[in-house]
């Protein structure tokens, strides 16, 4: 029986007492040699004997009904095997943690770009050719709303409030009321979504590009109408996710269906264009920030309202004001959201849903308030550190926001910041900006198995490593707990035949799968203590030697048969009694070209407190990656739609501008402040992958303002917008 541990109270900091000393160490990733030599196998790597290849066909109307798919239009083409469509096809990927099939629209089209059929052929070339030629006829609906700004199908809940915002805002000595927009954005993971399906009798094995296998298995089974026990998913390597691979997608279901009918393996890899068309995007937002403060900078009123969009039938709405609800607090707080329904590529989670766009607005508004108050932006934030979550009244489990702000200012040389527009180097204005960072933290039900033999240990869980460092950190936790060199621990991931973990998403993977691994290893420690005849607290395990009860025994001698323990963990009372979030501070220096408006980021610093760090090297990579995503959101990324049909215009990597080498400065620093979050989980960690992006873009935009006077309210701050804003500011 698996023991499920509920996080009901603070746990001892066992990882600080164990003797191996490798938790937190900046170790290389164990799978690194495979990755750098091209031997790590991703979903689309490899075609088994006899495999056929499929290419998805997209709808070319915004909304309506398919009246015919003319298979004869391609059946004569050399190598074409068949055209597949039908009631099981997915409209779009499942939302994260859905655990059931997403919308299966039958013969209906709900957005331009929706995958409606799969053409399967002997070769990729034949399938691609046929997919482009396939004749599809439609009955298009008239008057379809494809522009979210014009949607009248609006959903609105009562605002979330604390205190009386209107009264506090009216009474405030200084007030600010600003509107911002952010465009739709794409996760654009480098690995396109891919699936390789193969049946053996009624059992399906799917190699997929997926982040959350425990849920994906249920979603795939439900989509196909088969029991979940008949499905096995493998995803040992995933080429990035960022939310885009949270749920089962159309490529997986289509591959499974075609493979079942044909009795041979079928591989379906989305083209890059299909990834843009048919994978959940981040919604565009329009946001309104109202801040009211005393002359001395104390916030009295804070309201953050937003409007986002999604297609009909999707429950997800980007939680734009998530961080605004707890980061500072005020007497009067109010947060209202409007969700507009629209016939466009559906929206879902993209790295740090909520904070990634909401903090661009909040932290620019704070910067502007600091200007109005003639106050240092760092000091304004320090003045408004809340004692507890201002909306819920929960105490924070651990917060070092103030320390991050002070430490960051010190390390960055913040006091050298000049008045707006006064630092010029040739044709470049140079400026500095900063912002706070916050991203709430979670623990999600997770299980893992640890085996210990004389040879070493093995960790098994269906958890994924999407670049996050799971292989490294789970190995380090197990090695630490069992007193083994890390090379003696093998980590096996990405296989649904292993115990089910949280999956990678919401920055909760390390917390959750890490805690399960920790607990399973802890159970093994208990057995070992029994064999040593000592209490658990007396047991020391180090370099393969067990010590306790005045004895010293090589570990191998304590183990006759392999010791196997499985453990599972879930959130408990501490998630109610306390509020857990990562906090940090971002600093940026930019140069803005006086005549073209081009923005060059010169350096960035992120100081973060995110609980116990499990591997300083992979954690730093995660944080840096997030900060660069912040750069993209601030300066380059914009998913453009044609307002007439709603189709994605910037549907490839030449038109959707993810940051490239030349956009990113070499001078990027991440500093972690020592912290333990005792209320978060048994290993005292917090999520990392999303804190780095939260606020980072705002630090850049605030630096642009300081450099050249341009305050850009419609993001990204492309040269045209910067120039216009500079002119508006009189530069």
């Amino acid at each position, binding site marked *: 029986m698996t023991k499920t541990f509920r996080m009901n109270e603070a746990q001892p900091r066992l990882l600080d007492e164990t003797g191996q000393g490798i938790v937190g160490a900046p170790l290389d990733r164990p799978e690194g040699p495979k990755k750098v030599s091209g031997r790590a196998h991703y979903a689309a790597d490899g075609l088994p004997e006899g495999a056929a290849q499929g290419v998805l066909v997209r709808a070319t109307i915004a909304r309506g009904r398919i009246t015919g798919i003319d298979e004869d239009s391609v059946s004569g083409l050399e190598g074409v095997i068949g055209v597949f469509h039908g009631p099981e096809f997915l409209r779009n990927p499942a939302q994260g943690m859905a655990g059931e099939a997403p919308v299966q629209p039958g013969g209906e089209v709900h957005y331009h770009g929706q995958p409606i059929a799969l053409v399967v052929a002997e070769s990729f070339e034949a399938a691609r050719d046929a997919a482009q030629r396939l004749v599809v006829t439609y009955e298009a609906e008239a008057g379809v709303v494809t522009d979210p700004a014009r949607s009248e199908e609006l959903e609105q809940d009562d605002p979330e409030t604390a205190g009386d915002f209107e009264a506090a805002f009216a009474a405030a000595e200084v007030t600010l009321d600003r509107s911002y927009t952010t465009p739709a954005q794409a996760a654009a993971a480098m690995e396109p979504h891919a699936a390789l399906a193969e049946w053996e009798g009624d059992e399906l094995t799917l190699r997929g590009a997926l982040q959350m296998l425990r849920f994906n298995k249920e979603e795939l089974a439900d989509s196909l109408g088969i029991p979940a026990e008949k499905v096995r998913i493998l995803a040992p390597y*995933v080429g990035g996710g960022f939310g885009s691979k949270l749920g089962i997608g159309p490529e997986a279901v289509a591959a499974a269906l075609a493979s079942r009918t044909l009795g041979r393996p079928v591989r379906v890899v989305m083209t890059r264009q299909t990834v843009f068309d048919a994978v959940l995007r981040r919604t565009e937002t329009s946001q309104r920030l109202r801040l009211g403060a005393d002359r001395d900078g104390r916030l009295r009123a804070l309201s953050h309202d937003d409007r986002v969009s999604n297609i009909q039938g999707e429950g997800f709405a980007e939680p734009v004001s998530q961080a605004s609800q707890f980061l500072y607090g005020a007497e009067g707080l109010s947060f209202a959201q409007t969700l507009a329904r629209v016939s466009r590529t559906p929206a879902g989670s993209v790295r740090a849903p909520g904070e990634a766009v909401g903090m661009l607005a909040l932290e620019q508004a704070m910067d502007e308030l600091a200007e109005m108050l003639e106050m240092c932006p760092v000091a304004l934030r320090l003045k408004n550190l809340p004692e507890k979550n201002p909306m819920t009244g929960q105490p924070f489990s651990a917060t070092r926001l103030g320390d991050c702000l002070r430490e960051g200012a010190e390390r960055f040389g913040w006091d050298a910041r000049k008045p707006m527009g006064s630092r010029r180097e040739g044709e470049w204005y140079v400026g500095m900006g900063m912002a706070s960072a916050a991203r709430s933290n979670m623990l999600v039900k997770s299980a893992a198995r640890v085996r210990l033999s004389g040879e070493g240990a093995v960790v098994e869980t269906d958890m994924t490593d999407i670049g996050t460092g799971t292989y490294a950190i789970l190995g380090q936790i197990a090695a630490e707990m069992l007193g083994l060199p890390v090379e003696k621990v093998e980590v096996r991931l990405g296989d649904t035949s292993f115990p089910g973990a949280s999956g990678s998403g919401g920055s909760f993977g390390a917390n959750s799968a890490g805690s399960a691994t920790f607990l399973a290893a802890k159970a093994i420690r208990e057995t070992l203590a029994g064999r040593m005849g000592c209490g658990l607290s007396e047991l020391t395990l180090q370099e393969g030697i067990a010590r306790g009860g005045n004895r010293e025994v090589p570990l191998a001698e304590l183990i006759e048969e392999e010791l196997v323990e499985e453990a599972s963990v879930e959130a408990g009372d501490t998630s109610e009694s306390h509020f857990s979030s990562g906090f940090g501070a971002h600093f940026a220096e930019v140069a803005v070209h006086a005549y073209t408006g081009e923005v060059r980021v010169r350096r960035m610093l992120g100081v973060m407190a995110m609980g116990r760090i499990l591997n300083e090297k992979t954690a730093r990579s995660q944080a840096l990656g997030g900060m660069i995503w912040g750069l993209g959101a601030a300066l380059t990324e914009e998913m453009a739609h044609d307002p007439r049909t709603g189709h994605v215009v910037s549907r490839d990597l030449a038109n959707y501008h993810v940051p490239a080498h030349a956009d990113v400065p070499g001078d990027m620093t991440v500093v972690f402040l020592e912290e333990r979050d005792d209320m978060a989980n048994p290993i005292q960690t917090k999520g990392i992958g999303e804190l780095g992006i939260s606020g980072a873009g705002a630090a850049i935009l605030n630096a642009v303002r300081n450099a050249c006077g341009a305050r850009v309210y419609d993001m990204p701050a492309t040269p045209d917008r910067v120039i216009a804003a500079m002119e508006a500011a009189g530069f």
Partner: protein
Amino acid sequence: MPIAQAHATFKQESHMRTRFTVNGEAREVEHDTRTTLLDALRDQLGLTGTKKGCDHGQCGACTVLLNGKRVNSCLCLAAMHEGDEVTTIEGLGSPEALNALQKAFVAKDGYQCGFCTPGQIVSATAMLEELRAGDPSFASASLEGEMPLDDAEIAERMSGNLCRCSAYPLIREAIAMAAEVKS
């Protein structure tokens, strides 16, 4: 699932044969006339280290060395490379015997998911040669003379290789580290 040459049994009139050298070995592939070098490497030869990120020459994940120069193999038709010499990531080193660049990527954590990584490494291999040969770039102060191996040069010259995990600063540290080891 074993990687196999799935097309071995599929012979039709639009097929042709091309012979080239891959990682020092003479290879012959039978392929569709439309097959890219990338797909021939991945699916015919089972060399899946070279990745397909866009199939449009926009991401660099498919970078290979063609007669020593870096190219996007998704933009090359296999048919055009009769007699050519191709080097893929597999030809630069194996997990047991990594070369200096590969080791540096591991040591510096110059990757996260690893999907763009083979392309970054192959591209960097050729890029360092271009630098040594004195080929100027947009970041170079002058069109002639010695090109410095500084971060700005590496950033400019590596900009054809996207990394959505955004390991950029560490990728460049890794390249600089490997270049120093070599010189």
